[in-house]
């Protein structure tokens, strides 16, 4: 199903099927129509072998927190399902109960509790169970942190010091001050990777001498659907591959003006027999700003489209789970989802 490279004159059914067309004032041919009976003479029925043949996946960037990959040959419904699942349905651990013994800081209790809730926790959620509403906390479903900080004057501070961080000790309470207190056999189970906040330098509140916070924090497993603090990603998104089609040739000084309509690296100006000529080299970098469509001189000379089944997918993890593991977990969630439907369909049919 990977579409052939189009030339400009093709404004045929195949373009409408495989491309989103970007015009000056509108975007057309947006909906997927890759279905049987839609195009005469084309068999678009789903076939697993055909899918395996045409589906391509390629990782472009990979780091501890971010990844970008190309997914080619699937419908937007599947790509969108992955995006939605990554944002809302891959479980993580997050602070859910905050027991405040003492809080004399400037931040009021409920705001402090909310701020603690948003601190990402570095713990493998697959090693924990979901805690039901009526269930009591156990070492299998809860992580406990203690946050006990008191501020006092720094006896070694220089006279006339104005920076509170130097003048006082513990002027800022950081996420790194949250001390994990292992319950049951947690110390044994997690000795390879001790549980802690992902970042140690998130300011939770500020203190002045004599003020203190004394807090016990309980973390539970949850889903982003429930509250955004359980979302494992900062963002998961995709865009379609841009495509720039030139009708005939754009030569001379027009080629340079044409190049300037696009971000750097998208269009190159090459010399052919001493004549400058515009060539599209890397449409991936295009932002599809449509600047080129504003110029009368390029009217009917350029066409902007996007490849409907080429998704440039990007995952930016919050840090608790690495992005490549996130995608694999999203696949498992999706399989569970469809599996549930399959099983309940079978049991419903048997009952009848």
């Amino acid at each position, binding site marked *: 199903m990977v*579409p052939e490279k189009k030339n400009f004159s093709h404004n045929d059914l195949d373009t409408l099927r495989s491309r989103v067309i970007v015009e000056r004032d509108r975007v057309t041919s947006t909906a*997927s129509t*890759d*279905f*049987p009976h839609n195009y005469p003479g084309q068999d*678009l*029925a*789903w076939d*697993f072998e055909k*899918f*395996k043949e045409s*589906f*391509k*996946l*390629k*990782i*472009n*960037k*990979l*780091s*501890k927190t*971010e*990844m970008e*990959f*190309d*997914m*080619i040959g*699937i*419908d937007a*419904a*599947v790509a*969108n*399902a992955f995006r*939605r*699942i990554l944002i809302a*349905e891959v479980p993580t651990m997050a602070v859910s109960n905050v027991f405040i013994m003492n809080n004399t800081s400037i931040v009021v209790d409920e705001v402090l509790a909310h701020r603690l809730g948003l601190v990402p926790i570095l713990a493998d959620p697959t090693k924990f169970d979901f805690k039901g*509403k009526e269930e009591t906390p156990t070492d299998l479903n809860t992580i406990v942190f203690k946050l006990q900080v008191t501020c006092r004057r720094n006896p070694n501070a220089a006279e006339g010091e104005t920076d509170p961080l130097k003048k006082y000790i513990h002027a800022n309470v950081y996420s790194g001050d949250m001390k994990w207190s292992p319950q049951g056999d947690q110390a044994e189970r997690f000795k390879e990777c001790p549980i802690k906040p992902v970042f140690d330098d998130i300011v939770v509140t500020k203190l002045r001498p004599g003020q203190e916070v004394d807090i016990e924090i309980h973390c539970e497993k949850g*889903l982003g*659907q*429930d509250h955004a603090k359980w979302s494992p990603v900062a963002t998961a998104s995709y865009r379609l*591959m841009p495509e720039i089609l030139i009708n005939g040739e754009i030569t001379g000084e027009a080629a340079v003006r044409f190049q300037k309509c696009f971000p750097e690296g998208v269009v190159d100006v090459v010399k052919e027999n001493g004549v400058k000529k515009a060539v599209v080299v890397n449409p991936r970098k295009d932002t599809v700003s449509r600047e080129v469509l504003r110029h009368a001189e390029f009217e009917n000379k350029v066409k902007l489209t996007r*490849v409907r089944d080429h998704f440039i997918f990007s995952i930016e993890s919050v840090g608790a789970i690495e992005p*490549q593991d996130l*995608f*694999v977990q999203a*696949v498992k969630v*999706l*399989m569970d*989802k*469809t*599996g*549930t*439907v*399959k099983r*309940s*369909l*079978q049991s*419903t*049919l048997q009952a*009848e």
Partner: protein
Amino acid sequence: MNAPDRFELFVLPDGVKKLTITPDTKIPNAATFKIEKEDHTLANMLRMQLLEDPKVLFAGYKMPHPLDHYFILKVQTTPDTNPAHVLGNAVTELIQTVGSMKNKFEMDLIRARSDASKVDNGEGEDLSSHQVDMDF
């Protein structure tokens, strides 16, 4: 507070069936499926997969109300099969699709890792210089 519990989105209450089938009384080979505690994520995928089946004449879904956490899926098929059967096929096909995606992803992850291990600066390596091996 009178906010609805957020877990109502995904926790199936006792005695509620995940999936119910209501055959259409007026149209032949047509049925309405009601699937509880699922949203657009699954519904749109099922609709798409059903439409790729040549034996499906119609497939569409809707979420009747944003505060009700279920969707209905209407399917009409050709006379030689029935809606429950094509839905079963669609689900099987989806599982296959996703399974093969996972394999390809893991294969490419190994490739990307071995490429990245040559330059490990913690910043993540830009592999985009390697052209995607396809024509478009």
